[in-house]
């Protein structure tokens, strides 16, 4: 597929909200090692809230759908991750306000907007073991892809790959924010739970646009 219409965004969020809860235990386990072990339940409850909210978003433009879905997530699953993820979706959504569809060229800006919204919200800088550490590498990769005039499926696949690599690197980082921050050096060696959730979403996105690519 070459772009996501409002309808595509809604069906992607429906797919995403079915997929993510299946990784509940993996996320809980990671968060238990470095935080308080609630990330799995947070993501499950939040994704259900996104799903339940989609019907009310029929007919809205893509940016609004993303922004409101972020708020729906955090309304039911308020937490650090909930606020961060909601901020990311709201920032990305605001950025494409008025556009009727999401094209490949929009992706780098959207992820950058999300990243700067997140660092404004949480005050994190790169290398501090937060989702910024996967968002920024993705943004850079997407810019490169756009420069090479890659298709949406190609760009998404490349972004997901970059995300996985960046996730691997979060293991070496010392947490500076949230509960992980109180663990200081003890947090080194564990992969960042929140970034793990972002990677799972990105994988889901890459699959979605490519699959639809086949079937379109």
């Amino acid at each position, binding site marked *: 597929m070459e772009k996501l219409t409002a309808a595509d965004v809604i069906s992607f969020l429906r797919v995403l909200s079915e997929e993510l809860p299946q990784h509940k235990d993996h996320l809980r386990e990671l968060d238990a090692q470095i935080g308080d072990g609630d990330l799995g339940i947070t993501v499950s409850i939040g994704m259900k809230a996104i799903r339940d909210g989609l019907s009310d978003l029929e007919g809205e433009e893509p940016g609004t759908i993303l922004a409101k879905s972020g708020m729906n997530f955090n309304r039911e699953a*308020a937490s650090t991750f909930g606020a961060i993820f909601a901020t990311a979706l709201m920032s990305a959504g605001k950025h494409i306000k008025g556009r009727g569809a999401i094209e490949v060229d929009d992706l780098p800006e959207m992820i950058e907007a999300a990243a700067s919204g997140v660092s404004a919200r949480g005050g994190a800088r790169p290398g501090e073991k937060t989702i910024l550490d996967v968002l920024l590498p993705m943004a850079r990769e997407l810019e490169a892809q756009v420069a090479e005039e890659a298709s949406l499926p190609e760009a998404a696949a490349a972004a997901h790959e970059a995300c996985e690599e960046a996730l691997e690197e979060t293991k070496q980082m010392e947490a500076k924010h949230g*509960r992980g921050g109180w663990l200081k050096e003890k947090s080194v060696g564990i992969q960042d739970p929140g970034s793990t959730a972002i990677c799972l979403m990105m994988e889901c996105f890459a699959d979605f646009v490519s699959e639809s690519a086949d079937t379109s």
Partner: protein
Amino acid sequence: MKKLINDPMEFVDETIEGILLAHGDHFKRCEGSKRALMRADGPVEGKVAIVTGGGSGHIPIFLGYVGPGLCDAVSIGNVFSSPSPDDMLAATKAADAGAGVLHLYGNYSGDKMNFGMAAEMAEMEDIEVATVLAKDDVVSAPVEQMDERRAVAGLFFAYKIAGARAAEGASLGEVVASAEDAVFNTRSMGVALTSCTIPAAGEPTFEIGENEMELGMGIHGEPGLRRGEIMPADDVVDEMLQHILPDLPFESGDEVAVLVNSLGATPPEELYIIYRRVNQVLGEAGIAIHREYIGEYATSLEMAGASVSLLKLNDDLKRLLDADAYSPLLPTL
């Protein structure tokens, strides 16, 4: 899990229901939220409103500090997790009386971010919002990084001080200044003997040996300073004060308020044995005790353990601490 509860998923809402049934003359719900309460007589015309909130499981924190001379409204999260911005916004809008709103709560990233979003939404509705965070736990970060410290029972002092200042009719800026004065002059440290159990989890939050205690543990079971054999109460107090006193520092000639807080299961007798030693050590250090608070002021469900908090007083803080305040969540006669 040994608890007198019904469906663990209903734990928070049934607690709120019980509180409203018992204290319906004191509390009312904030419009548009099942998880936000306010003073029944609020908003108080012309007064700066103080809004707090956080995860459940710490009564009297947070909703126990809504009342005259304290906070005006509270938003209530699930056990140990942040309320949502919507509930915070509902509390903020309901409490606002035109003089501005102070968001006063503990320094936890989840609460911070969600209150941050609520503050932005409130400002979009032309409500002036300022924020002050309690960060009294000395072991959670070095003093140079005080902004990374978590809040424990010391939040109590910030409520009393800010609440009294607002009740005096001070401006938002003045209330913020007094709240910060309280926060920067408060230091705390805790000790845990047993874990608590989050109802929905059903399992203890952490494992701890039959003869072990953890010094400096947080009120959600966050790792503390060190784990070791249980020591005599006097030694525990001495070690706590060795961390608390130099941190501000509290020095000879200072005047302080003392809070000896039970995390839940620790009975009053033990709190008085702890206070006895605190009083002795401060006396030897030439630090005068203006007043003391001993009991359950910030709990962690049924966790056994206690915390000691000190507030260094100046004339303003003394006047504000001594001002009247009322909440039915502290047992009355």
